[in-house]
């Protein structure tokens, strides 16, 4: 842990994350014309936290309670057989479901795009949204699939050897996005 820390530097600090989420919340309101039929679905663990924070902001700005939930994608991953089976995250759909609504998927880091592809598959099994959009706190590039985000907190040019780690108050005790150089191995 400690030698990794030495190699890491914070790209976004607490206030930066706060501002980015505030902007994304406004963009969602703007792009969806008031977020009337929006459902926010976070990808566990941190995407789910971010989705809740976005919902809080939207409520703050427009007094609108946007349904918020989470969708676990573990069972839909395309790399399941490359690693040991892993524990599942939580899927919690809003009571009214996603049919006919605009689903905004929320994830912390957008990288290869494979997680988002899995999320689209998972979404397909729980209902038929009218449209699906994607919000991500960090877009670090290196896409392997034709997927792009509609709302981006920060575009972060990275090399493939680097790692991006998102820490959030609710799960990790602090807000920060770290860029970690992985040469010390």
């Amino acid at each position, binding site marked *: 842990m400690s030698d990794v820390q030495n190699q890491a530097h914070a790209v976004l600090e607490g206030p930066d994350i706060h501002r980015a989420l505030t902007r994304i919340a406004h963009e969602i309101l703007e792009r969806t014309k008031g977020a009337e039929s929006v459902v926010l679905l976070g990808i566990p663990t941190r995407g789910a936290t971010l989705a809740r924070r976005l919902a809080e902001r939207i409520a703050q700005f427009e007094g609108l309670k946007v349904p918020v939930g989470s969708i676990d994608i573990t*069972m*839909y991953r395309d790399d399941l057989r490359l*690693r*040991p*089976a892993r524990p*599942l*995250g939580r899927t919690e759909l809003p009571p009214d479901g996603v049919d006919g609504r605009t689903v905004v998927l929320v994830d912390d880091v957008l990288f290869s795009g494979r997680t988002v592809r899995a999320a689209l598959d998972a979404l397909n099994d*729980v209902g038929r949204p009218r449209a699906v959009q994607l919000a991500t706190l960090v877009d670090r590039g290196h896409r392997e699939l034709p997927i792009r985000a509609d709302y981006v907190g920060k575009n972060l040019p990275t090399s493939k050897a680097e790692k991006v780690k998102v820490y959030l108050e609710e799960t990790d005790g602090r807000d920060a996005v770290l860029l970690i150089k992985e040469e010390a191995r």
Partner: protein
Amino acid sequence: MRHLISAGELSRDDALVILDTAEELARVSDRSIKKLPTLRGRTVVNLFYEDSTRTRISFEAAAKRLSADVINFSAKGSSVSKGESLKDTALTLEAMGADAVVIRHGASGAPHRLATWVHGSVVNAGDGTHEHPTQALLDAYSMRRRLGRLEGLKVAVVGDVLHSRVARSNVLLLHTLGAEVTLVAPPTLLPVSVETWPCQVSYDLDAVLPKSDVVMMLRVQLERMNASYFPSAREYSRRYGLDRDRFARLHDEAIVMHPGPMNRGMEISAEVADSPRSTIVEQVGNGVTVRMAVLYLLLGGSEPAIGGTA
């Protein structure tokens, strides 16, 4: 390669991972599309040498919900009746590319032997009077769902312990998970080595009932009895059956379980079996979920996430 042969080889962490995974998978059975793509292209063989309704169907449903291909094999009507050995049958299945073999066999230890012959995962679906680990897992899962916890839970397992693989698996698993098990049976229906099991033993059902949070009734396995273990069915039922009067002595939150199939009127009265505090039907539904969790954790990744080595 890893298998699920005995509930005793599951660590506390393994067992909790299975129960937590099942908890998440339970949500899948509430959706309109009750299927996940996770085990696409994997083959699960149900190898059943003994009759079974719920276990076989439950494993089949679990594998299918995870998109695995399922091959059902029952000894009746197969080459087993021509004298084929378990090993040759196993090698045949292996050659057909089975990733997992779910086996039920009348001989205790058959899954253990099988595990040394095949490369795939072996899941014990009941071997003789030895073990039935997925039943114990689904029982623990059902208890946790109803009562919210397992730690410190007082569980009475009542009846034909001698012939019961369910009792042994439950004692081992519940002990691992921190519950206190008391076996209640006539002395003739307790195995010789029962004092080495991590549980209490009693001959007096009426004394145990008021202290129990869970009462698990076992089926009297007449088909395995080659001698008389009790004077008459009537007498057994009077001393060890769960009827209305005994049921009334349980505390208000206590639940009644039965692994099925039941002999109504023998170990459990129809009235008790159908009461809202009986989890018997629930246990069947939970069985599918728990078996999905087991199959996912054994086959879902590059290597199994649970279980002991055989």
